[in-house]
């Protein structure tokens, strides 16, 4: 006796959250069944393994049918085939678009192309996330990217509107899209200590201040592309380190203000010129795409690592950066105050976030 056909269709579509999780995690039906058995569900319910197998198959089939709709969440809301309560719809969408930290760190900043997709095998092996789950997450990134890439208006709003995600998740996707578009390098070894959250935080600041949308909210790609003009202008900041007088003056202003307030004052004083050169050179280099990609590598190399090797406490870093950016306003010979603020305001936020072990 073999079961040829075995289905259950409810007027309200039954969604089992546990099975949904297993499905999203990419487990095969048989793996999911054994995982469920291990969870002790048979003992709790008095069911048999055969019942569990049939139930799992059924849920998997339902999810498979729903998947097509999940690719365009507004469709899920308007479709008539599956009657699902709104709260469940939200859960289905949110969980489908949720991603693993380990996975996102692997692909963050990479081009969402076929080439990357081929690497998913390695990522799967490396992270222990099933290949199926990797594919889903990758395809989600790519799908969101494709849809919002050329759209006007706020990136987060667009994502929310087209994928009905929660605010938090929409922000994460905005960061992913932003990173993918600008191809920021995040995979270098020295960046490994950074979490997705760190990058997402930086991305949000950069989107707010460094993109086209920060100046004009009516442009296509406004939140996705960096403001090219702004990047060009950043070259002007170079005089802060190229002009020796200016550099000395800047240093003395900062040192005067911070004397006695910094635990690592002497280290700061000794390193000021190096640090300042680093930060300003990063700005000046941003005209080249390649240097844009290496932004985070540079920041870590030129600022985070030197400070860390001198054991600066986070608070000292904050005091220093505040003073460092504010003191520029007192430099009479420097005319690009607004530019400096647009650059340094964001950079300060990013550096503080990036500065940890």
């Amino acid at each position, binding site marked *: 006796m073999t079961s040829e056909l075995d289905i259950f269709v*409810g007027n309200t579509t039954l969604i089992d959250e546990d099975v949904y999780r297993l499905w999203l995690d990419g487990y095969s039906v048989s793996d999911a069944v054994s995982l469920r058995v291990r969870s002790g569900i048979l003992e709790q319910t008095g069911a048999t393994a055969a019942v569990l197998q049939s139930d799992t198959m059924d849920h998997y*089939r339902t999810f498979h049918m729903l998947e097509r709709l999940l690719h365009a969440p507004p469709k899920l809301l308007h479709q008539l*085939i599956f009657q699902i309560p709104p709260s469940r719809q939200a859960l289905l969408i949110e969980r489908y678009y949720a991603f693993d930290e380990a996975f996102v760190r692997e692909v963050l900043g990479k081009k969402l192309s076929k080439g990357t997709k081929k690497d998913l095998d390695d990522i799967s092996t490396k992270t222990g996330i099933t290949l199926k789950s990797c594919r889903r997450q990758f395809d989600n990134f790519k799908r969101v990217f494709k849809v919002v890439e050329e759209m006007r208006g706020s990136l987060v709003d667009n994502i929310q509107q087209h994928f009905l995600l929660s605010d938090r998740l929409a922000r994460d996707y905005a960061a992913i899209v932003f990173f993918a578009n600008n191809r920021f390098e995040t995979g270098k070894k020295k960046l490994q200590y950074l979490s997705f959250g760190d990058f997402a935080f930086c991305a949000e600041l950069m989107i707010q201040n460094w993109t086209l949308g920060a100046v004009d909210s009516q442009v296509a790609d406004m939140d996705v592309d960096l403001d090219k003009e702004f990047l060009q202008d950043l070259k002007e900041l170079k005089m802060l380190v190229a002009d020796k007088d200016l550099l000395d003056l800047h240093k003395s202003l900062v040192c005067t203000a911070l004397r006695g307030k910094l635990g690592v004052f002497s280290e700061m004083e000794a390193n000021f010129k190096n640090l300042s050169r680093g930060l300003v050179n990063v700005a000046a280099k941003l005209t080249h795409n390649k240097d844009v990609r290496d932004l985070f590598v540079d920041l870590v190399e030129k600022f985070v690592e030197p400070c860390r090797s001198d054991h600066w406490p986070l608070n000292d870093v904050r005091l220093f950066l505040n003073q460092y950016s504010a003191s520029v306003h007192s430099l009479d010979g420097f005319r690009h105050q607004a530019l400096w603020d647009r650059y340094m305001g964001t950079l300060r936020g990013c550096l503080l976030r990036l500065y940890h072990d």
Partner: protein
Amino acid sequence: MPGKLKVKIVAGRHLPVMDRASDLTDAFVEVKFGNTTFKTDVYLKSLNPQWNSEWFKFEVDDEDLQDEPLQITVLDHDTYSANDAIGKVYIDIDPLLYSEAATVISGWFPIYDTIHGIRGEINVVVKVDLFNDLNRFRQSSCGVKFFCTTSIPKCYRAVIIHGFVEELVVNEDPEYQWIDRIRTPRASNEARQRLISLMSGELQRKIGLKVLEMRGNAVVGYLQCFDLEGESGLVVRAIGTACTLDKLSSPAAFLPACNSPSKEMKEIPFNEDPNPNTHSSGPSTPLKNQTYSFSPSKSYSRQSSSSDTDLSLTPKTGMGSGSAGKEGGPFKALLRQQTQSALEQREFPFFTLTAFPPGFLVHVGGVVSARSVKLLDRIHNPDEPETRDAWWAEIRQEIKSHAKALGCHAVVGYSESTSICEEVCILSASGTAAVLNPRFLQDGTVEGCLEQRLEENLPVGCGFCHIPYDELNMPFPAHLTYCYNCRKQKVPDVLFTTVDLPTDATVIGKGCLIQARLCRLKKKAQAEANATAISNLLPFMEYEVHTQLMNKLKLKGMNALFGLRIQITVGENMLMGLASATGVYLAALPTPGGIQIAGKTPNDGSYEQHISHMQKKINDTIAKNKELYEINPPEISEEIIGSPIPEPRQRSRLLRSQSESSDEVTELDLSHGKKDAFVLEIDDTDAMEDVHSLLTDVPPPSGFYSCNTEIMPGINNWTSEIQMFTSVRVIRLSSLNLTNQALNKNFNDLCENLLKSLYFKLRSMIPCCLCHVNFTVSLPEDELIQVTVTAVAITFDKNQALQTTKTHVEKSLQRASTDNEELLQFPLELCSDSLPSHPFPPAKEHLESASSNSGIPAAQRATSVDYSSFADRCSSWIELIKLKAQTIRRGSIKTTVTVEKASPMGEGNFRNRSAPPCANSTVGVVKMTPLSFIPGAKITKYLGIINMFFIRETTSLREEGGVSGFLHAFIAEVFAMVRAHVAALGGNAVVSYIMKQCVFMENPNKNQAQCLINVSGDAVVFVRESELEVVSTQQPTANCQPSCTGGEVTT
């Protein structure tokens, strides 16, 4: 030209991509009705076209309006080649043809293609302008309402129940026409869908004509079926019960708060009781006015007033000791004559209802069924389907004579079915023989005094158990005892029925689903040899099914079956029998004895030991089941009452005078005895297997109950969460050495596993009950068994104590508000217990007796009292049903069996018992349920019948997820299309939903599969009780408009 049909195509959405190059579609729509077709403009390059068409107007006969479906086809325009069809929508415009139903059909319909399934949606608006004289053309029957519900629909009352209507139409099946060889599968499927739609319309119109002839205005319990006879044609047949229904005007009035005298006047003119004498003649005359003054405060005023009347007169029986009982005899006889004369005018006194207006059913004689094996031949002249008509007439005649043998003149809970395999067809019909109250059958011609006095003699809660036939001339041997409730009339030891449990029946404990399952191998044979083989097997199957049911019933410690439905399915090489019913313990019937096992081999120590071991296991199971289903011996109640149990001698003396009407039961042609089910003889391995299989039925996990009736006996506090589902399983039998035993085991496992899966899937709803569990078996191929289950899971409130306090509060509120009601409550409750010569002075005591009467243990008394008193006051459904054991005719092809369905609970009851309904009105949700009601809600409007037929076919089975994926998607699509149609009618639920057919065929080698599904139900508007209450508190005296309330919900 009596009607103008107007159609507007508004927009489409989610259309499929038809042009690969542009990833877009150039869609336009063809609207076709009859032979007229209109087209919209082509909306270029869009998947969400906005046609916003003009109104397309069709001027048509109302005959066509009834027969034809509106056909909407969405196409993709192609300049160079033929336009590609995207899909179709068929809209049945029948609901627009009667005044009270929907006025407009407007909404999003899934665009359906028989090959691709649902492909986007289309927004359509449909209206009908009907001209004045609807009945000028005699061929049309516009205005006759159809209901699938097998009881009087909730917001109507029955003025007259006219009786049986049936019709069948036949045609050639397009699938088997020569042209099918050259047309595409899509064209063939669409031809079939369209033909069946046309035939359904025609059938409905013809039935409507019959109803008009009978001067009725509605068909209740309408059941339409298709017989796919293959080469020999396509039969569409329908049966139903013609009624004259009256709409209850103020649905909101059923709230106690809306107690306005003005309404009262509105409702009274149509007093259903044709005899004012009824009220004035009894000793309880003063009650009459009270009855009227209070009843209008309920929406069921008329029904409750009539039942009140019945009840209020009953105390005479109780208090007048035996005298009334004695008088009862002659009057009973008179009633019979009366009923007989009313019914004999009819060819077939059959009723498809399973639940009845109060007082309708006087006696029920037992279950009758007939089967007949026929060889199909080609239907030569579709316009004269005489052969098929004759077949059914023959079977109905047989049913009628069986009923007569049981001393009954009518058959209720009647249904018909077929099972077809190749050219052999088994026709089956079954129902419950009954004696009916003539009052509902004719227009006020009954003599009042007769009726009134008869009503006096109906003991409440046990009357339906009393035998209607003469005990000296019984149609079959049965153990008779005096009724454990009233002690006056005789009852059988076991009762099998096809109807619902009457709401006033006194049940002890809870009920449970009981199934008998059976397979029998049969040699493959052709034509007549095959038919003969089947005919010879049938009686044995019936017998075994019956024995199995009986044994399982005993094992559960119960004594009655309701909703019995026996299905015999024929396949190439086997016959399958599946009987489902809901077992209960009726307080009026004797306690069932245990099961004794008797071994046949003497002097074998180990064997004896084995037997005694089995016996012990059986006894343990019975004890366990009694505990599980809370079946407590009824003795307790008698002690509490303190009334003496009449000595057997006393009782017999008292009752002897009653054994009168022997002349009533005329020919008793069913004299075959049945084997006593109490003793199981283990004389061979087969019997051993049987006993084992008895013990393998696992009870549902805790927190779960199941039944195949509308509601679960013993559970009353439903909450509002419902989940309707369909589950299908197909197993392939290994063809090697198939024996009956192996087959039985496979089949048994299949059903048990299916149930287990359901319990597991629905575990989040615990505590809950699977209601109206409906199994259908088919044998699509040699080694395949297909089981389809449709049921609804309803949650209930485990915490009855909470309910009690709640009801108490409610009750005291009501008391405070209406003094009249309080006064009235008394006599009503009094009459519900039939204790002889026991005056009931204070309220307390009488409450106590009421509870004890219903056999509920002392701890739960308070609860039950509340329920019963509420039931008495509010219930519109007090049914008196009598049921009897079943008869089997051996040695003939046709066999007599009992079957039935569950009854809806009184609305009043369920209102009071339901938990606070959840207030969130989920927008756009359409509920579906096989029941006739929605827990925690009130149906305010019936929008019309839904009757849909779909075919789905695929040539890429693997790509669609195999057979499971294919069927899963199709059933989900069918649900979606039903919901969309209901929503377009302005409704928010389908009640009495049934999947009548699910024919699945596969050919995995060719990567193909095809499935046909036929579903039906009643589209309704319901309002949550919580919302009703809100409305009523806001405007306590205003007459709440049902339409506005409904509108709020459906928006």
